[in-house]
């Protein structure tokens, strides 16, 4: 085991690096792309409706990074990410072909169009058959390295580098060096404050890898969401649902006899109550991961929404207070909320790990038999 572990670490790191360098390669190709605008939603973002649309756009996943847009000329500054589609074979091309949804991308004789962040198969002219707001066109399986996927790969690589260095420094002596010195207290915090008291002294070790991974994964992604790169990964309900499902399956598969006994045949209550309690307890099995999903998703989404709305104050309040006062007000408020979001980023990672370990603890606890 000792010999294979570094190999696996390097293999995973290598795969992640290939993926990210792939993204960067296509990024440098299309860096600072400039093109004409002809869409009705473009132009300077100066009305509440446009700001709302912009915030909603930010909260969604995207196929490219847009750092800023020149409001007058409509030029986007940023870089595109690779698109990978499965549709009668593999289609791999750069998202730059979409020109932010304004052009039809051609790949191996098929035509694709971007509509609100989703890719649809179209004819050569890029006509979307609309049903209300939703196109009826065929949606190919989209395995693209989107912004969120890129963020998760980046987090994986960062964690491998940080914790690989921390693990390696223990070979030299008991005291970690470099960045490991900052990480060791956090690892110990997760162990001593979260895992040990909730899971129990004899069983916590088995679950430490999961709890540590999920804690740092969520925390680093939350912090990445506060950078101007525009990540919103933990504010994506698919990501949080997947994380919660990990907890759900770990709880179900490590549960002991007493856990199932408490769900289907609650001990210590009259038989009629046992029948009434069983469906409630079964429902409880599913509401736990559901609440984990919603909590993380809603907190991060709400945080991004409030932050962007406060930044938008400098536009909406300009008419009433003048440019200097509105900018100052928006700056002060957004710095204040940003500091709170720094706290929330840690708190949500803590809560997710804490509740996960609480649920695991409930499933593996040894009851005293009287």
């Amino acid at each position, binding site marked *: 085991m000792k010999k294979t572990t570094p190999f696996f670490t390097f293999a995973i790191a290598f795969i992640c690096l290939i993926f990210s360098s792939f993204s960067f390669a296509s990024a440098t190709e299309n860096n600072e792309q400039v093109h004409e605008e002809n869409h009705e939603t473009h132009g300077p973002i100066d009305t509440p409706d446009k700001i709302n649309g912009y915030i909603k756009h930010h909260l969604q996943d995207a196929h490219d990074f847009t750092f800023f847009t020149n409001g007058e000329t409509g030029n986007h500054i940023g870089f595109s990410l690779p698109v990978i589609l499965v549709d009668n074979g593999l289609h791999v091309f750069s998202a730059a072909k979409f020109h932010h949804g304004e052009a039809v991308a051609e790949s191996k004789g098929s035509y694709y169009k971007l509509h609100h962040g989703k890719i649809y198969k179209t004819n050569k002219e890029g006509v979307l058959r609309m049903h209300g707001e939703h196109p009826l066109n065929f949606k190919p399986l989209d395995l693209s390295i989107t912004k969120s996927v890129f963020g998760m790969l980046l987090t994986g690589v960062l964690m491998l580098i940080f914790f690989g260095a921390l693990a390696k420094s223990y070979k030299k002596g008991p005291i970690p060096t470099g960045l490991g010195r900052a990480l060791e207290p956090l690892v110990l915090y997760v162990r001593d*404050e979260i895992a040990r008291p909730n899971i129990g002294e004899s069983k916590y070790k088995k679950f430490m890898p999961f709890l540590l991974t999920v804690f740092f994964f969520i925390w680093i992604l939350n912090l990445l969401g506060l950078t101007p790169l525009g990540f919103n990964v933990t504010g994506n309900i698919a990501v949080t649902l997947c994380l919660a499902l990990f907890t759900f399956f770990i709880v179900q598969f490590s549960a002991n006899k007493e856990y199932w006994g408490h769900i289907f045949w609650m001990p210590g209550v009259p038989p009629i109550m046992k029948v009434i309690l069983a469906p409630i307890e079964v429902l409880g099995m599913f509401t736990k991961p*559901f*609440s*984990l999903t*919603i*909590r993380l*998703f*809603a*907190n991060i989404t709400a945080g991004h929404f409030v932050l962007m709305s406060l930044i938008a104050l400098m536009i909406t309040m300009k008419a009433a207070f003048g440019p200097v006062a509105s900018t100052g007000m928006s700056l002060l408020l957004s710095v204040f909320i940003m500091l709170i979001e720094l706290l929330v980023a840690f*708190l949500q990672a*803590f*809560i997710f790990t*804490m*509740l996960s370990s*609480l649920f695991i603890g409930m499933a593996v606890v040894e009851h005293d038999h009287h």
Partner: protein
Amino acid sequence: MYNLIGAGLVVIGGGIGLGQIGGKAMEGIARQPEAASKIQTAMIIIGALLEGLAFGALILGK
């Protein structure tokens, strides 16, 4: 329209709940300052559970 009223009601309920949790935790810490860290952890967990409920209602109501 009704979902906005519902959202307001959820926020009122959540606010009352969080106020109760925070207030009682403060009282507890004032009475037993040495138990502050334990009370804080429990407070955050209950707060998170309440928050999950409130957010769930807000999102389902949207």
